[in-house]
C-alpha cells in the first residue's frame, strides 16, 4: 500500500492497522503530518471567516401588518398628530392617543421683564400707597384737627372739594383716585411694607384706567412677567405700557406660540413621505407647503408605534377604535429649514 498517494485514503483505511511500519513509511508520515497541519489551519481560517459576528440584537419581534386599512389609518393618524402638534383642528376620534402629546406652541412660558419695569411698578405702588393714606376712605386715614378758620371757611382741607388737597394730587393720582378717596384697604402692614391687598387693588386700578398693560402678571416674588401666549399680535404684540413708559420684549424671548402655529404660512405643512414598518413603527415627514407663501420653511417628523390589541374581551365599535387603542409613543418634532 502506497500511503503517500492519497493520505485521506490512508486515514480512512485506519491508522490502527497492525502492519509493520518501515523507515520509508515513517518519513512519509512526517510529510503527511505537515500537510495535515496545513490543511487544518486553512480549514480553521476558512471557518473563522464564515462565522458572522452577530452581535446585533433583533428586537422587538416582527409583527405582520394586517391590512391596507391599518396602513391608511396610520397615515390619517399621522395627519392628526401634526394638527394636534400645531394646535389646529382635527377629527375628534383621533384625540385619544394624542392626549400626552405636547403642542409646538408654548403659550404658558413666563417671559420676564427687565428689572427697570419692576422698579417702575414698585415706585408707582409706593406713591399710590402714600397718597391713599392721606385720603378719606383709607383705614389709616386720620382727619386733621379742624381749626376755627376751617370751620369758618366751611370745609375740611382733605375733602375732595378742598383745593389744598387736590393740588397735591397730580395727574397720576387724579386718575387713580378720581374722587379723592382711597380704597378701604390698608396700604401698609405692621412692618411698613405694602400689603398684598393694596397692591392688588392698585394694579387692578392701573389696568382699569389704562396706565398698565393688563397682560402683565407677577410671580411669587412679585416680579413682573407675561405669558408667551399673550404676546401675539392679536393680543397687543410685544409692546407693553407701564405707566409713563412703554417696554418692548424681544421676539426671540417669546418663542413659538399657538397663534403662530395656527396662522403662519410656514406651518402650512404637507406630508412629503411616510413609511410603515413591520414592527408597527410609523414615520412621516411633513414640510412647509411651497405654495403657502412662507419666507421660511420647517420640517416636522412624526413617529409612533402601533401594537395590535390582542385582548379578546376588548370591545371596539370600529376598526379605527381598535387601531387607536394600540397606538403608543406618539412623538413629533419640528426643525427650521431643511
Amino acid at each position, binding site marked *: 500500500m502506497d500511503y503517500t498517494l492519497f493520505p485521506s485514503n490512508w486515514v480512512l483505511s485506519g491508522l490502527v492497522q497492525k502492519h509493520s511500519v518501515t523507515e520509508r513509511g515513517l518519513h512519509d508520515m512526517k510529510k503527511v503530518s*505537515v500537510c495535515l*497541519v*496545513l490543511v487544518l*489551519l*486553512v480549514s480553521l*481560517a*476558512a471557518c473563522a*471567516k464564515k462565522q*458572522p*459576528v*452577530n*452581535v*446585533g*440584537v*433583533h*428586537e*422587538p419581534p*416582527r409583527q405582520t*401588518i394586517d391590512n391596507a386599512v391599518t*396602513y391608511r389609518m396610520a397615515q390619517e393618524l399621522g395627519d392628526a398628530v401634526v394638527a394636534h402638534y400645531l394646535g389646529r383642528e382635527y377629527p375628534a376620534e383621533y384625540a385619544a392617543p394624542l392626549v400626552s402629546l405636547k403642542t409646538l406652541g408654548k403659550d404658558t412660558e413666563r417671559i420676564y421683564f427687565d428689572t427697570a419695569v419692576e422698579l417702575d411698578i414698585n415706585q408707582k405702588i409706593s406713591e399710590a400707597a402714600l397718597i391713599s393714606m392721606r385720603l378719606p376712605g383709607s383705614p389709616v386715614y386720620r382727619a386733621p384737627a379742624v381749626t376755627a378758620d376751617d370751620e369758618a371757611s366751611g370745609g375740611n382741607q382733605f375733602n375732595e372739594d378742598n383745593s389744598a388737597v387736590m393740588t397735591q394730587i397730580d395727574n397720576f393720582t387724579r386718575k387713580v383716585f378720581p374722587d379723592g378717596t382711597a380704597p378701604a384697604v390698608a396700604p401698609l402692614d405692621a412692618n411698613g411694607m405694602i400689603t398684598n391687598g393694596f397692591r392688588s387693588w392698585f394694579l387692578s386700578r392701573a389696568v382699569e384706567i389704562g396706565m398698565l398693560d393688563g397682560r402683565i402678571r407677577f410671580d411669587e416674588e412679585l416680579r413682573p412677567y407675561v405669558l408667551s401666549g399673550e404676546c401675539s399680535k392679536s393680543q397687543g404684540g410685544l409692546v407693553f405700557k407701564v405707566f409713563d413708559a412703554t417696554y418692548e420684549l424681544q421676539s426671540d424671548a417669546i418663542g413659538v406660540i399657538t397663534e403662530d402655529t395656527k396662522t403662519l404660512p410656514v406651518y402650512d405643512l404637507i*406630508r*412629503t*413621505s*411616510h*413609511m*410603515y*414598518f*413591520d*414592527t*408597527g*413603527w410609523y*414615520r412621516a415627514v411633513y414640510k412647509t407647503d411651497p405654495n403657502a407663501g412662507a419666507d421660511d420653511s420647517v420640517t416636522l*417628523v412624526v*413617529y409612533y408605534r402601533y401594537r395590535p390589541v390582542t385582548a379578546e374581551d376588548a370591545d371596539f365599535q370600529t376598526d379605527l377604535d381598535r387601531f387607536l387603542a394600540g397606538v403608543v409613543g406618539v*412623538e*413629533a*418634532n419640528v426643525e427650521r429649514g431643511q
Partner: protein
Amino acid sequence: MKRILSVLLAVLLVISCTSCTKKSVDAEEAEANAKAISEGVFDWDAAREKCISDISDVLKVILAGDANTYASTRNLWMARVEPTAQISMFPSTPPPQNCSAVATFWGYSAPEYNSENAEYLIFNARCMDNQTLAAADYRIVIKLSRGNTGYIISEFIKEAMFV
C-alpha cells in the same frame, strides 16, 4: 533555523491562502448573486437579513467607532453605498471618541407600505460617553435599493430622538 523558517513559511502560506480564498469567495459570491438576480431566483429576504445584521455592526462604528476602525469600515462599505448617501452615512469626520454605542433593529418597511415604494430599515441607536455616561439616542432610517449583486444603501437618515 530551518525550523523557524519552515514555520514562517507555513504561516505565510496560510495567510495567503486565506486571503485568496476570501477574495475568490467574495468574487464568486458576487458572481453567483448576479446570476441569481438576473435569473430572478435571488433570495432577497435572506440578503436583507444579512444586511440587518451587518448594518447593526456598522452603525456602532458610525456612532462611536475609534478613528481607525471608522476609516477601515468606511473604506469597506463605500462600495455598498450610493454616492448620494455616502456623506450622510460616513461623514468626513470620525464619530466622537471614547464612546460606546448599541444599535437595535426596529423594523422593515416593504415597498407597498411607504410613500416611496422602496424598502426601508429602521434602527434605534444609543451612543454613550464612557467618561460622563451622557447618552444620545438616534433613529436611523436606511433606504435599500436592489443592485446587480445584492442590496445597496441608497439613503441614510440619522435623526436625534425627540426630547
